[in-house]
């Protein structure tokens, strides 16, 4: 898709010169979104500030902690390492897409609660999105594989073992 670059404009009300904005169209949690954004806006900031999807958290903004993980065209990625303009035309899922509209949690979320796999919950959306992508492709992993797949997500509260327990229990129940 071609990006249409708008010319700098003067906002008549407060006489501010707006920088170059780029119009992007993408699908977020099943809805088509069209917005004009500054080229330097991070995808994570776009989701949080422009779309008010604040479930995607920012723990480091340099690609290490995994709190900002989302799913983009069926791959989990770190939204703090991309610009919003790079997501033009893509299909994005954030943590807000996991529960039903009525608020019923999905199986993985339920398992997290049952196994006390979250404390402060700040890291949790990142873990859920990393795992959602992974379990889609690998429905019955071993404990070691789960440990490995979440090793790109930092959690400072739980000490991880309950997260692994939750995943093992969820995959076992799902396959029964």
């Amino acid at each position, binding site marked *: 898709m071609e990006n249409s670059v708008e010319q700098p404009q003067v906002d008549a009300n407060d006489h501010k010169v707006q920088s170059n904005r780029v119009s992007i169209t993408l699908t977020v949690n099943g809805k088509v979104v069209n917005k004009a954004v500054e080229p330097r806006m991070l995808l994570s900031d776009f989701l949080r500030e422009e779309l008010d999807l604040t479930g995607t958290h920012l723990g480091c903004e340099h690609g290490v902690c995994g709190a900002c993980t989302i799913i983009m065209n069926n791959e989990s990625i770190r939204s703090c390492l991309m610009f919003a303009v790079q997501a033009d035309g893509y299909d994005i899922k954030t943590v807000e897409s996991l529960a039903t509209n009525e608020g019923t949690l999905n199986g993985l979320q339920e398992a997290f609660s049952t196994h006390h796999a979250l404390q402060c919950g700040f890291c949790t959306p990142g873990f859920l999105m990393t795992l959602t992508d992974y379990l889609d492709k690998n429905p019955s992993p071993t404990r070691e594989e789960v440990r490995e797949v979440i090793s790109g997500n930092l959690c400072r509260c739980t000490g991880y*073992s309950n997260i692994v327990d939750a995943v093992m229990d969820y995959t076992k129940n799902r396959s029964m």
Partner: protein
Amino acid sequence: MSNFIGKNVRRKEDHRLLSGNGEFVADIKMADSHEAAFLRSTHAHAKIKKIDTTQAKELEGVAAVLTGNDIKGLIEPFKFFKEFGETPPNAEEINLMTQVASKELLASEKVLYVGHPIAVVVAENRYVAEDALELIEVDYEPLPAVVNPEKAVENDSPLVHENIKNNVHTSFEVVVGDFQKAASEADQVLQTEIKFPRIHCNPLETRGILSNYNRRRDELTVYTSTQIPFVVKNYLVSMLGLIEENVRVIAPDVGGGFGPKGGVYPEEILVSYLSIQLNKPVRWVEDRVEHLQATRHSRDQLHKVEVAFNDNGDILGLKDNYILDSGCMNYFNLTCAYNTAAHMRGLFKIPHYEANARIVLTNKTPNVPYRGAGRPEAVFTMDRVLYLVAEKLGMDMVDVIKKNLIRAEEMPYDQGFYYKDGGKVVYDSGNYPEALEKVLEISEYEKYKKVKEEKKDDTKSIGIGISSYVEGTGTGPFEGAVVKLDGSGKIIASAGASPQGQSHETTLAQIVADQFNVDPTDVLIRVGDTGALPHGAGTFASRSAVNAGSALYEASQIMKEKLLRLAADELSDTIDNVTLKDGEVKSKNGKSISFRKLAQLAKPIPLFKAKRNVEPDLEGTYYFFPPTVTYSSSFHVAVVEVDKKTGKFDIIDYSIVHDSGKIINPKIVEGQIQGGIAQGIGQSVYEELVYDENGQLISGTYMDYLLPTSMEIPKVRMDHQEYLSTRNPLGIKGVGEGGAISPPAALANAVSDALSPLTINLNQLPISPSNLRSLILKAEKNEKAKREGAVHEG
């Protein structure tokens, strides 16, 4: 009655956090909200000659630029937080010497560390605010930086603060018995040096603040990622000259705390000040790189110890001379340094003890108490010493522990001096020998000892390490609680505690639910909000279940009494004849009345004429003041496999037995322990804040400051003891910090054990592969030299 205390009640917090509906500071939106960004010093120590903000102010979208000169005389500098340790009652006895340093909220004359705030910009969004920072010019005149705390105390060292002589901010000594005498009588005396590095606490959510001033009502509402909203409120009120009633501080969902969010920060005062000046909501969200230099650091102690012992393993005395590098300020007074002294002897009987502590200032980020607060440092020191004694005597460390352990029948045990809250250090309850037996059993100590002997080969070997502690928990001075019956029939329970992941909404609801014989879902917990009750403290120092739990328990009794009285009256029965069940009060005469109805009856309405003498509203308020701390205790056993060639080791197994008194929710307690141990492992193996000789922070991003991941943390084996505290109504002891205390000592001992008979001096952290590898090389060289020397002599 105990229907819910002790049960794995599902967490009330989970649904919102799992569905992306948590509300952290950065998630809160307000119309016309502006963003702040801070300009921070790039020098560790420098005079500021000039700050030029002209260009920044002219940038489109910038609403304000503030420097230290703009607030001079308006906002006082920070000195220390009196809430966290005023002069202790035994100041004279411990020969306390202390001075007062002060630090400008925005440096205008001199910067004291890399990260010291110099200016703040408010703009329409963070991108513009950060652009403006680039346009501010600061002219520095660099000064020599004070970096090494041992050199800082020498006469020729530059000074961090002109008025703090030799950079020693505070010193004190604790003396029990007579160490010199013990040393002269003991069979042996051993000396060593032990160092705990400077580390960062790293809650996954950085700090964040959103201040909203409403000029018409002169009201200030501040959302901040804090552990202590009431304290933040007090400082806002006094530093900005506000009316207490008009300030409300809210800690919404907070993404981890662990200590550093347990202090007031310049940013909280400045962002609020700017919100008032601009009459707009102003938000500041810290980024991680900023966090690593601007959010307070911790630990950083150097110990020189002497231990006097007999050949049979009896330890007669311990003398410890230590320095705590507190960075450029000592905001928390004695907190960590005195905790270290108070916890050094742990669960051992060591009759002669002397501690000399100095809190030294350097050009680094100020320190803060972090999970364990001086205790991991004490335990690392003590348990390394025990290891060295055992090694020297050729004994199993377990046998040395057994020789010196306080016995069950000796409880309550008096350690012979005072805690910093003025109470005597008297361990209230516990059974340490039993805990030791349990941990040896669940860790399969004997089995691993055999494996160790069998598996030894040239490269890989197994080692077992043990560590233990007692922990003064549930620090006062108080916590407040208000329990009331809502018109809906639900119980609203408010407490001054302020969680960051500790599950207060669940555990505190369990306590209250049991008092009213209702389900925890019928109890709404309000915490982290100064609007919920008049006075509170917050959540730190493993204190909330003890203090907030007890306050809620007592407030519930007060409210219950009123409820029963009203119900009895309404049911035409006596108070002894009515009971609570399923949200109703039932009378022996068969009649019943719902909580909802009672709440309605208690409400005064226009033209209401009380037919009985009841206060309007059913409400109970209680402030709980614990007599002193209550003592949790624990044993940890680590089993490791060390690869001599690379210096890397794996944790094969980790076990813990813990006594935290009455357990409210086992799963949550276990979660606290597992999480604490993970942080302890991080500090043992990966984490260190490294400064170069100019005071530049070298490990200032997540690329060089390593945190443990799921690959490094084992699932811990656990067992519990439940020796009730005698110092609060439910018998609770604190558990939040415990897990983090022992891993450094347990792991260092395990690694040393694996490498024995090679004597490596594993007296500093982190035990990273490169550090360990160089210690191994050094030890091998020593050994070789010794052998050759022996051959020579022979």
